[in-house]
């Protein structure tokens, strides 16, 4: 990349060749208005808001697409340009219904902001618009075509970021409309409700069902934290108002997923209907009754001291809690382990980050179902498949990627994938617990050039691994201590219990909680402080978005207190 020198509105600036005028302007605080441009998406160049004048070039140029060159002279706000922008806004306001006072986006709308900026205080063009349908067939968000400006950000987000290709345009010209698949209701379409389209929509056309009318940007608070719904650890921007969760957005400039979330991270936790445990409980007269923390901890400490305990964790809590769990059992003299199985370790390859998938030229998915369990990894793989990168699937458990796959193989045939990937420069192997020894051996020939991403089922598998927790089943201990956090235990687990004294540290009511002798409530994902270590091995922070109820205590703290008590 060579440097170029140009002037923008008379100011001399230095830039990298290959940058667009818009990028350079933004870096130098020149505010060129945009509507269809979005930094996470490919350029579209169609709203025409960012037209600028470049000396010596015929006609006006779209700043979002025009690369800078040395000696270029750019004017971003001539009278003609301001008139054109006003004209474009007038057209957009005449096309469909933009009576802002009824719109949930009013105040936060990019179109409305620009209308203020260019002084649109009334409509001048006739508004022959027809009333259009509103599609509320999807659970989490609504499409109101009346507010849509056809910027196609949603289409590009769906195709390029989520790699799901649900959205497109139908008809043409003034009849153009956003549609799902071949024009079916959104709720009946191939949409996977990742919400990426919702997040990029500049207007009130895509409406979040939960946060609509719940507060404008100036009223709300934002907290960044890490998603705890799977082991990927996407960064979340959690929006709250009056101590209420409004909405979750992705964070564009934060690894591992750079803005992309899945339905499990963005929507589902806000609609969690499970009943929460909010008070410590102890079993008295064969009934669980509320008690104080002092009493509950005394009972637990007594049991840990006086009997042979075993600790079993679902690795869905913080590194701090998992470490304290291990320490507690070291002191109590019992075994501690994790309940989820562990993906086999490979003695070759380099550990991969998610971004390595985006730079790969061959992808092998072995014994893993990322589209189901670590969805964002699945979307990353689909993105690459769209670009023509070959994807080989190995093993029977693989689901959902078949349409993208160039090879579908059994474990015995794994050698074929290794062979096909041999000439690749940056092959990536994504695997999980299902991976069989024969395949491990067969893929070894890819050697150290392969990047390896192990997708453990445990949400904080690497945290558990670092703490020293190994997969373990119920042994013959008298006292069982389950650390569940927010997760639900395996149903088969309850059936294995057999008269042992059972302690459960959990957030939600569940069969195991019902069966327990002592229950210690833990905070929810948005109340937690601490860290997790994601699939890439990166340690990511959890920040409390809202305070936890006074009767709930952080599991790490509780475990530390227990250690002192025994």
């Amino acid at each position, binding site marked *: 990349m060579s440097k170029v020198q140009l002037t923008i509105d008379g100011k001399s600036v230095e830039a990298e060749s290959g940058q667009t005028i818009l990028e350079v302007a933004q870096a130098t605080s020149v505010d060129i208005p945009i509507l269809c441009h979005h930094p996470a998406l490919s*350029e*579209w*160049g*169609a*709203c*025409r808001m960012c*037209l600028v004048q470049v000396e010596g070039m015929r*006609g*006006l140029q*779209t700043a979002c*697409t025009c*690369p800078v060159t040395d000696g270029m002279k750019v004017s971003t706000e001539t009278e*003609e340009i301001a*008139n*054109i922008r006003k*004209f*474009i806004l007038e*057209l*957009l306001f*005449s*096309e469909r219904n933009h009576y802002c006072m009824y719109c949930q986006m009013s105040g936060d709308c990019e179109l409305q902001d620009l209308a203020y900026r260019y002084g649109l205080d009334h409509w*001048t*063009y*006739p508004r*022959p618009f027809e009333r259009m349908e509103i599609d509320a067939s999807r659970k989490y968000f609504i499409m109101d075509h009346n507010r849509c*400006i*056809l910027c196609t950000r949603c289409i590009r987000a769906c195709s390029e970021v989520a790699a799901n290709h649900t959205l*497109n*345009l139908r*008809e*043409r*010209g*003034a*009849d*153009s409309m956003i549609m799902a698949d071949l024009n079916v209701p959104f709720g009946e379409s191939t949409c996977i409700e990742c919400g990426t389209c919702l997040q990029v929509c500049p207007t009130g056309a895509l409406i979040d069902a939960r946060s609509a009318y719940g507060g404008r940007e100036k009223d709300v608070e934002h907290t960044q934290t890490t998603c705890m719904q799977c082991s990927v650890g996407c960064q979340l921007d959690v929006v709250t108002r009056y101590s209420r969760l409004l909405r979750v957005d992705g964070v564009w400039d934060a690894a591992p997923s750079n803005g992309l979330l899945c339905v499990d991270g963005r929507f589902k936790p806000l609609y969690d209907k499970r009943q929460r445990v909010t008070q410590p409980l102890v079993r008295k007269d064969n009934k669980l009754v509320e008690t104080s923390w002092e009493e509950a901890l005394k009972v637990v400490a007594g049991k840990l001291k006086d009997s042979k305990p075993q600790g079993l964790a679902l690795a869905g809590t913080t590194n701090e809690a998992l470490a304290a769990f291990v320490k507690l059992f070291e002191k109590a003299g019992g075994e501690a382990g994790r309940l989820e199985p562990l993906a086999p370790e490979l003695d070759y390859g380099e550990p991969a980050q998610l971004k390595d998938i985006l730079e790969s030229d061959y992808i092998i998915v072995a014994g893993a179902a990322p589209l189901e369990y670590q969805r964002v990894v699945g979307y990353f793989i689909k993105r690459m498949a769209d670009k023509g990168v070959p994807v080989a699937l190995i093993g029977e458990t693989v689901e959902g990627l078949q349409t993208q796959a160039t090879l579908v193989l059994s474990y015995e045939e794994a050698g074929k994938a290794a062979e096909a990937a041999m000439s690749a420069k940056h092959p990536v192997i994504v695997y999980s617990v299902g991976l069989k020894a024969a395949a491990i051996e067969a893929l070894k020939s890819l050697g150290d050039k392969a990047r390896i991403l192990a997708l453990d089922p445990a949400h904080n598998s690497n945290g558990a691994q670092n703490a020293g927790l190994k997969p373990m089943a119920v042994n013959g201990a008298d006292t069982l201590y389950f650390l569940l956090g927010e997760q639900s235990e395996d149903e088969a687990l309850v059936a294995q219990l057999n008269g042992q004294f059972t302690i459960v540290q959990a957030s939600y009511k569940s069969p195991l909680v019902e069966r327990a002798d002592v229950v210690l409530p833990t905070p929810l994902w948005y109340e937690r402080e601490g860290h997790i270590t994601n699939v890439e091995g990166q340690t990511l922070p959890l920040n409390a978005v809202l305070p936890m109820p006074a009767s709930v205590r952080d599991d790490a703290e509780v475990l530390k207190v227990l250690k002192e008590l025994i």
Partner: protein
Amino acid sequence: MIRARVLISGDPLSLSRGAEKTKLAIEAEISYYGLEDEIQVSYLTHADRTDILPIVMIYPEGVTYGPVTPEDGAYIVQEHLYKGRVIEHLFAPPEVLTGDIAHIPGRKGATYAQKRIVLRRAGVINPLDIEDYITHDGYFALAKALEEMQPEEVLETVKASKLQGRGGAGFPTGLKWSFVVQQPGEKYVVCNADESEPGTFKDRLILEGDPHALLEAMALAGYAIGAHEGWIYIRGEYALAKERLNKAIQQAKELNLLGDHILGSDFSFDIHVHAGAGAYICGEETALLESLEGKRGIPRIRPPYPTVAGFRGKPTVVNNVETLANIPPIIQNGADWFRSMGTERSPGTKVYTMLGDVNITGLVETPMGTTLREIINIYGGGMKDGKAFKCAQTGGASGSIIPPELLDVPMDFASMAESGAALGSGALLIAGEDTCIVDLAYVLLRFFKAESCGKCTPCRIGTAQMLEALERLRMGYGTQVDLDRLEEIAHYTKEASFCGLGQAAPVPIITGLRYFREEFEAHTRGECPTGVCPCSVKQKVKH
């Protein structure tokens, strides 16, 4: 031994007027007289006037009859072919006997010969017969290039010929090719045969009448730029042309004029035909490429231009049918020969499709630089019913309105542009004094509103708003406010649109206002000077 040949026009218009029945009648009559072995009957594409179809031509005499009913056909066999007597009263009117179409001594000179390069074989040969094409100099240029010329020489010849693209923009063809040659890797030749500009049907007649000429030209282009595959993107409605192209490709492959190692050389070239699905925007080259790749037909961001990243992201030459049809004669006869025709800046000929208020509508090929006045008076046979000329629109729907003052501008790309007009695709709409300019603009804008792809804001909504304003003026509800608004929208839509469609859609309004402002203003008072618009009807009712 064939002693005579009967050609019956087989273009869609002729077929719709019963050409097939006429052909059957002629064939039946020939077999009645037992002349099957002596007389060959076939279709040809009639490449000329549309008012005398279907026509029947008989060679070697070169007599043209038209229009010919099935009964006439049987009578022609009896009288002309069996008894040897020419039937005077069935002759096509003399105007049709122009240029290379028919060589009847005594009739020549009574008409004005056109200069035909592109259309020289259309209507003369049987388009379904490759041998016929070859006997008319066909594939000579390709053979010459493969045997005697290096690819660079072919490119240099095209450059030196100064041939400009006939698809509308007049971009120098040789220059375009040289951009592609500079690029590394695989390359493609794409022929733009989408021809959806209203009033333009020149490409169709080349495709229907001389399909091999296009194939030969594409192979030459492929040879020059180093491509091995070509695609013809043909307008979906051109079923006959598509059929003939496919047939021609098959024939050319059989004779190794396409395919691997053409004529034993190292050069291999294959051609595919892809039909569009009825979108004007797919004639715009980047939308065409999107459509060819199976995507929604919408224009791409440029740069990169197709010459750098075109079909499947590879460097691609996109050329119009007429542009390509000029290539074989240029290679065969040399750049100097080509430059001896037309004007200094725009050599060669141009094919026009003339419509509207002239006596003879149809196809004309004349040297570049012929004036509109000449075309109307000589080839169009003057204005219809003695009407006065009001204006013309050149270049199809998106062309400019030409007032009487510009009738004597030489029609070539540069001169037209200098006088504030555009040559465009070659459609010539000639409007007489009884045409209302507001009504004309309204009809054109209806087309653009329907054909806008909807990608960009100004064109998608601007065309709808301009149509709305024109509708108000036409109906007599319009005021000065509507007219001002119309002018404003037209100006900004032209300035701000993404592609040529939106940039050109306001041109009829802008140029119409430039020359006929009073007429627009009259409509703001509810008056339509020509009495065409609905507002004039209302006015009459009012009085």
